[in-house]
């Protein structure tokens, strides 16, 4: 095990972290603004991957990713208007969990009925070809693109949340919904936007993985729990927290797996979560305890 190996693990960690960051940011936006724990996030990520599977061969990689993001954002708005907004205000939180859990089942099994349970992969000529060589470290182009897309998307998300009025309004609603009402911010509009963003981000995460992994209706099942752990460690509803922790967990997993076994890799994130919960129950990047 030499320096190249360490660099290789580092590069793997960044790629892994980029996928986690896209997913975790979306989950955090939805939780922060709507106070909804979105158990359907993994299923929506899978839908994003399927959307890209259909789009990319028609339009090429970059436009395929954009189309996927747009389609999924619209789906987010539909879910908000059709389902989440209709929850009665009392007990909306616990009902939203049952609702999104049911939604996850429906999407997943619907996908099996529609597309079959078998794995699919993009045709060879639709995938980003070749690989980058950083020193002795080989990074397949498709994986490098994950990092590029994640950095660009998360950068845009940062600007949206911090440099625009509508972003300030979203952060305002997530921190104090009542105060936001008083200044005339429409909770419906912000809710739609949050779901559009959250589901769109899940879609982008799925889309970037389509050329690298295989696409199958089950692909969202395992990852969603990891992403929940990341959002909890980051401080529920904190978007920057979720993103930073996503990259930390990507590194942690990569090194835990590289120097230990695949088992240490898969439990490392949950051990990390338990440790953080003991030391700092509100999460790493939350300034207060949220209910």
């Amino acid at each position, binding site marked *: 095990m030499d320096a190249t190996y360490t660099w290789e693990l580092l590069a793997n960690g960044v790629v892994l972290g980029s996928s986690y960051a896209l997913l975790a940011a979306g989950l955090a936006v939805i939780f922060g603004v709507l106070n909804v724990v979105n158990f359907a996030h993994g299923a929506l990520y899978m839908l994003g991957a399927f959307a890209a599977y259909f789009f990319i061969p028609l339009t090429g990689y970059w436009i395929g990713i954009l189309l996927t993001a747009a389609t999924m954002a619209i789906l987010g708005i539909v879910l908000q208007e059709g389902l989440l907004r209709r929850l009665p205000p009392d007990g909306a939180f616990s009902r939203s969990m049952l609702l999104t859990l049911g939604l996850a089942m429906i999407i997943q099994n619907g996908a099996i009925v529609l597309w079959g349970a078998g794995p699919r992969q993009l045709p060879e000529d639709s995938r980003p070809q070749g690989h980058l060589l950083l020193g002795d470290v080989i990074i397949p182009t498709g994986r490098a693109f994950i990092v590029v897309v994640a950095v660009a998307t998360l950068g845009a998300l940062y600007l949206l949340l911090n440099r625009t009025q509508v972003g*300030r309004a979203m*952060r305002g609603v997530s921190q*104090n919904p009542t105060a*936001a009402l008083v*200044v*005339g*911010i429409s909770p419906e509009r912000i809710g739609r936007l949050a779901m559009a963003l959250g589901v769109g981000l899940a879609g982008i995460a799925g889309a970037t993985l389509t050329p690298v992994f295989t696409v199958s209706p089950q692909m969202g099942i395992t990852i969603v729990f990891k992403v929940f752990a990341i959002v909890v460690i980051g401080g529920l509803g904190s978007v920057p927290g979720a993103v930073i922790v996503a990259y930390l967990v990507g590194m942690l997993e990569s090194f835990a797996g590289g120097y230990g076994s695949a088992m240490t890799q898969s439990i490392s994130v949950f051990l990390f979560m338990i440790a953080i919960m003991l030391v700092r129950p509100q999460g790493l990047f939350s*300034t207060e305890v949220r209910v």
Partner: protein
Amino acid sequence: MTATLGAAAPPALQVTGLGKSFMGVAALSDVEFTLSTGTVLGLIGPNGSGKSTALDCVTGFVRPDSGQILLDGESIFGKAPHLIARAGLVRTFQTVKLYDQLTLDEHMSLSLRGLYKAGRSGASRRRSAERKRATSWLVEFGLEQLRSAPAGILSYGQKKLLALAAVLVTQPRIALLDEPLAGVNPRIIDLIRDAILQANTEGQTFLIIEHNVEFITSCCSEVVVLDAGKKLAAGPPSVIWDDPAVYEAFLGRKGDGHAG
């Protein structure tokens, strides 16, 4: 902009027959009051008399059971809170409600944003006027050094000042303040009173819930007294304090007020 003008124009806010019960217990019954443009109306009464419920009904946070609420002659009864806010009724809360991780500047700009749709004509001129107003209120309240800091680090008094500034900067049709002075020190009381008087001089209409007798007497042109959810009396402060019923219900029971 004075209250004596324009008999034809409807009052800024007219509340009649307002009723609200919680699980069969009447919190408000048949409350009525009128707020004229450019005046400061005080809403007073002992704890639990229904002042905050009345404010919540008017601003849409609680849906009233009965009555009529007219803003400039248009009904806002039972509308959603953010729509009432957009219509020009902007309030503060007894427990100050801010966004802890947003900066002071972000508070001011959020406060302005929700009320004005992003119009195109004259937007830039209006924006620069708004920015100037925001700065001047922050300067007046001694908060300009902290404008890039998150609101979470402010002291309680500073939070109350920020909440007030965020309302005043929007120059709403009516500013509704729920106990603006509660829990703050005398220096900040002075700042708040001066700010309210200054804004009123510039034409700002206010509806204020407050226990501080001296403040009510010096600031309000008219006072409405609630007791057990009912309107007990109404009139200029000087007259109200002489009403024995008011004295007994409000001052007598509290035992801490001496009519000035």
